[in-house]
């Protein structure tokens, strides 16, 4: 279907929707879901603790909330922390933009694939100390999410987990093995929400282990949302399986990305590594800029 016919096909529906007045109490939120964390633990359930990312005074999208979890347990064991946040801020008249880093990609992907069509109680966006919110009355199917920005997503796993390269071996590391992570949930089931992938390439330390271009923790096959493992690189790089393309199209060697995954940033200049470094740094910097610009 051409874009023109697409627009024609849906014009009546869109026009009808325009006739509905917006809810005056509607609020947009920006939820930040962090990744693996073997350092100082974040305060799970405390939506103001941005210690994983950097200063909490830094702008990072409208009404930003830190979705904290223990950063070391299995995705399935801690996923309730993410669902609690989504229930709190992304139900009823409230809507969310999501930013996720590293294993946070798997957390939001897992939640949407497995529970994105489940019945959710509409909450009041007023969290208790445990991160849950009170009921506002009523239920709805799934969550009100507009789109997802992903900084160096680990939804495809990392070869560093495969070979036990990390000094600290936690349960999450077992989930982060490439075969395990890719089999954990249907990465294409995003409830038709777009995952915009920001893929860093400032990595040299583990270039012998991580396939293709990497940011010192995860390779392009994962950070670019490619549906198969392999060595994917920037244009002109030799000895790779293919070039990671921007957008949602296949890699240069014909490997498809997961559906509703689009590469927004391919780090051709190799300037972004994996790490926030307590200063919203690395690949998180451009994601933050994007959130500031578009999460309104």
């Amino acid at each position, binding site marked *: 279907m051409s874009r023109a016919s*697409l627009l024609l096909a849906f014009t009546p529906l869109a026009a009808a929707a325009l006739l509905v007045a917006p809810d005056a109490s509607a609020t947009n939120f920006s939820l930040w879901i962090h990744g693996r964390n073997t350092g100082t633990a974040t305060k799970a359930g405390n939506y103001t603790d941005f210690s994983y990312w950097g200063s909490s005074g*830094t702008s990072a999208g409208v009404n930003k909330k830190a979705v904290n979890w223990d950063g070391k347990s299995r995705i399935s064991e801690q996923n309730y922390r993410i669902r609690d946040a989504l229930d709190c801020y992304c139900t009823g008249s409230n809507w969310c933009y999501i930013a996720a880093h590293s294993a946070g990609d798997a957390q939001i992907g897992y939640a949407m694939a497995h529970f994105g069509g489940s019945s959710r109680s509409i909450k009041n966006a007023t969290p208790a100390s445990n991160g849950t919110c009170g009921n506002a009355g009523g239920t709805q199917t799934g969550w009100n999410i507009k789109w997802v920005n992903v900084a160096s997503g680990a939804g495809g796993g990392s070869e560093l987990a495969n070979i036990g390269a990390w000094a600290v071996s936690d349960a999450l590391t077992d989930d982060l093995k490439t075969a395990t992570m890719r089999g954990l949930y249907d990465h*294409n089931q995003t409830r038709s929400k777009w995952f*915009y992938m920001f893929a860093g390439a400032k990595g040299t330390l583990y270039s012998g282990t991580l396939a293709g271009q990497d940011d010192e923790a995860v390779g392009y096959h994962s950070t670019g949302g490619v549906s198969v493992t392999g060595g994917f690189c920037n244009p002109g790089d030799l000895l790779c399986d293919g070039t990671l393309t921007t957008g949602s199209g296949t890699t240069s060697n014909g490997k498809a*990305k997961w559906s*509703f995954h689009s590469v927004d940033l391919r780090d051709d200049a190799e300037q972004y590594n994996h790490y926030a470094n307590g200063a919203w740094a690395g690949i998180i910097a451009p994601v933050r800029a994007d959130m500031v610009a578009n999460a309104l």
Partner: protein
Amino acid sequence: MGLLLFWQRDRLSSPRRAPSEDELLAAAPARAAGDTPARSQDGPKPRWVDPKTAGEDGAGARELAEKRLERARHTLEGYLQATRYPPGARPLSEKPDLQKAHSVAKSTQPLARSDKKLTDARVTLEQDRLYLVGDEAARLEVSCTTSEGPARCEVLHADARVPETMPQAGKLPAAPVVFTDEGAGSSSVTTLFAPAKEGFGGYHGPIAVNLDLRIDGEQGGARFDVVYTPAPPARLTGDVREVLEDGSLCLYLRLAVDKPGRYVVVGRVDDADGDGFAYLEHNDPLSAGAQEAKMCIFGKLVLDEQAKSPFVLRDVEAYLLKEDTYPDRELVPGRDGPFYTTKAYAQSVFSDAEWQSEERDRHVKEFTKDVKEAEGALEALP
């Protein structure tokens, strides 16, 4: 990086909005609204603009407003197009890694030496399934290479054990695993690993199959993981009821459920020519006893894909999804290959209507509002 640090310093000095925010806004990426998100077409263009060059292209308030409008339109148009079909009946082409059952990603990595030193010895690990139940077995294959090409895989030791990250670690004895090759000097070795036959019959969880390997004189390790369910929580009886409902063909798969809970059941659908065109998913709670998992071949999907019946439901997989725990699932024995063949129907029985639901209406209303607001913001600029 220096510029980013500069932004950070400025931000900390402002109680409301950091002076640098305008730079960030100007530098932010802008997606192209005109690109459609369909699998068969290319998606949105990359929007990222390097902050270091942002000032050079004269990005100002108008450009930012235009980019915001483009994103809002892309969000709306993309959602409208994608949700022509319901979440539980998607084009099979939309599932590139799930075309067949038991998909497991292949992994190529260095031989893992105990001293962490990297050599040019590499292993490729392939397995035909990650999740197993009951008496099922997983085929595991290791291929070895060096920079010179394929190299002999010499298995010095291999065993299966509960990983150290599990509370049951060390409580079950490790079981030896025998890998075989196709002859002396073979660059690959294989085994069929059946947990029930190796002493894991009462264990629910991950099992690590560890190998000590020697490749071209280099010694190191590699590891497979499988996740084992000893006893299925439910059983697919094989009975299917097919019903035409509102222009779609709904299949009701009968299950004998021992453990109630949220069951995920998926399957692929081929048309009369054997071409796969649909991926069906049931994800809803089921009570104990005789139950049915409803999976509908959406009418508009049939027509858009020009799929002719009879249809064949194949490669059915299922599991009980458990919240807040690990393992997060108990596997139900599925069926590889054909599961059920429908009757033949005239194309006229299928509806061309798009999916309608409260979920879709809610999103379209919000995304339409966003477009209108973005248009208003752009028009308000001098």
